[in-house]
């Protein structure tokens, strides 16, 4: 981890706890978790099923709320934000990359990339230009008018990555981004994410089961039963 470096963490987690009700019983998923993530980190969250890695990712991304603890992103404790404020915060600070791409099937690649910009204070032309530029950054300028169903899995994930970075968010969160891809496409996506990290300095937090994907990250956090396990360390 980078805790020793004299930098301010972009994500600062202290005593984070989260439990779910299952069958009338409270099941603790995360308990008293502490973690710092620094600007420009490329972090892989790993661990067995039920270890709490996706829950942690959801909490960092502000799509779920913890039971206790603090979670600061760029100094803002997002656990204190209302649902409405949290939605606005996500729109400006988080880019999502999902395992199954989650593109809108009725929108073209370009329109999918443009979608998050509807929440930004931009004119129609500017939105279109930014979406086109971002789509070309992921190498899909020639597929802008294609619908998701007309693209391969790898191409769809690249559109999803373009959608995630088009608003220039503080964090990129990826939940199993290569989980639905073949080996070649997965390699391309990981390479693209590495480039986003190294060339654009994007902070990436990625949940993965894939050791190869984890190796692309700078550091790995192993989660076991809701806590950081012994296996945490550098990915490379």
């Amino acid at each position: 981890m980078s805790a020793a470096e004299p930098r301010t963490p972009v994500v600062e987690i202290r005593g984070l706890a989260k439990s779910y009700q299952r069958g009338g019983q409270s099941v603790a998923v995360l308990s008293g978790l502490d973690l710092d993530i620094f600007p420009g980190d490329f972090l892989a969250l790993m661990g067995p099923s039920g270890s709490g890695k996706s829950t942690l990712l959801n909490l960092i991304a502000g799509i779920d709320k913890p039971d206790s603890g603090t979670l600061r992103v760029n100094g803002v404790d997002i656990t204190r934000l209302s649902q409405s404020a949290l939605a606005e915060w996500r729109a400006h600070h988080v880019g999502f990359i999902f395992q199954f791409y989650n593109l809108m099937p009725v929108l073209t690649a370009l329109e999918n990339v443009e979608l998050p910009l509807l929440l930004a204070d931009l004119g129609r032309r500017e939105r279109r230009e930014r979406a086109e530029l971002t789509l070309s950054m992921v190498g899909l300028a020639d597929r802008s008018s294609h619908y998701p169903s007309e693209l391969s899995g790898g191409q769809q994930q690249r559109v999803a990555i373009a959608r995630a970075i088009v608003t220039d968010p503080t964090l990129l969160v990826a939940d199993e981004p290569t989980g639905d891809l073949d080996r070649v496409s997965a390699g391309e996506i990981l390479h693209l994410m590495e480039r986003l990290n190294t060339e654009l300095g994007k902070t990436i937090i990625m949940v993965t089961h894939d050791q190869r994907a984890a190796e692309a990250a700078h550091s790995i956090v192993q989660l076991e039963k809701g806590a950081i396990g012994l296996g945490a360390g550098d990915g490379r």
Partner: protein
Amino acid sequence: MFLRLVSRNTLRHKLRTALTLLGLLVAILAFGLLSTVVDAWYAGAEGASSTRLITRSSISLVFPLPITYRERLRQIDGVSTVTTSNWFGGVYVTPKNFFPQFAVDGETYFSLYPEFILDDAQYKAFMRDRKGAVVGRKLADRYGWQIGDTVPLRGTIYAGNWEFVVRGIYDGREAKTDTNQFIFHWQYLNETVKRLLPRRADTVGIYILGIDAPDRAAEISELVDAQFRNSLAETLTETEKSFQLGFVAMTEAIVVAIRIVSYLVIFIIMAVMANTMAMSARERLPEYATLKALGFQPWRVGGLVFGESVFMAMVGGALGIALTFPVAEVFGQAMGSLFPIFHVSIGTVLLQIACSVFVGLVAGVVPAVRAGNVRIADGLRAVA
């Protein structure tokens, strides 16, 4: 972009959308037709004039009044014109060919009905011919009658075979004017009745009184009825509108039933549409969760579903309204003289629009709230 998303989502399941639109179209069309039927029921009352009073037997409409009342009626303060009308009830070829036939006092009748536009020469020809008849344009068109044609009627109230010669065809001044009537000389009827049934001669069905001051209608009616109180044939005088509404009241239950059915149709399509929207919203929960994850507020996400519901309802409604006019035309012709005035009113169209919007709003509200409130983590999990 949001509108694009709404319109493209609407067309996502083409068959489902087409069937829902078809259902909406049929429902709005049926509602429009049933409303028009109700309007047609009241058409007589709607077309009534405030300057006309109807005097009839106080016992029942089937009891005639003596013709001798005419002069006494003329002398009542406020009455400017007096004319008469008798229901004839004849059959043209077959009982299926129903249309109203009235034996009237030709000299005064048309002056009290300025909404009947009759050519002067035709009126004179009618007045010259004892067996002459004036028929409405719609009726003439229906049976292909032309000036000079002989129309045989078989009497039911006044037995025997009667022959009339079409001497005039009148048009309506307004769309709501009934041009489905067959009008002939009371004198011709009376002369024949005098010969065959002398006891029934010299009587009329109703008197129609022209008044100059509609605001005095109640007072004049009272004066008329007072004039004949304690006589052998006491009268009941009322405005033409009340007289027409009296007929409607006899069939009030049918009108109420039609109204209930028309709203039931809307309720059914609302349930169908709500089900369609709920299905669509359920299928797209992962997409709504994704939108929320991207930062879209619940009201925006719900707005997508709501917009789709209202959009579909408006398109289906618009198609239904557009089809109401030609279908009503055909329906009105098929109904013949049962509904002499069968026009889709502005009120009906406004009601159709209101129903379409209402269906769209109500059908969309629950799925929209569900879509807006979907828990992001749950919705995203549903995609796997």
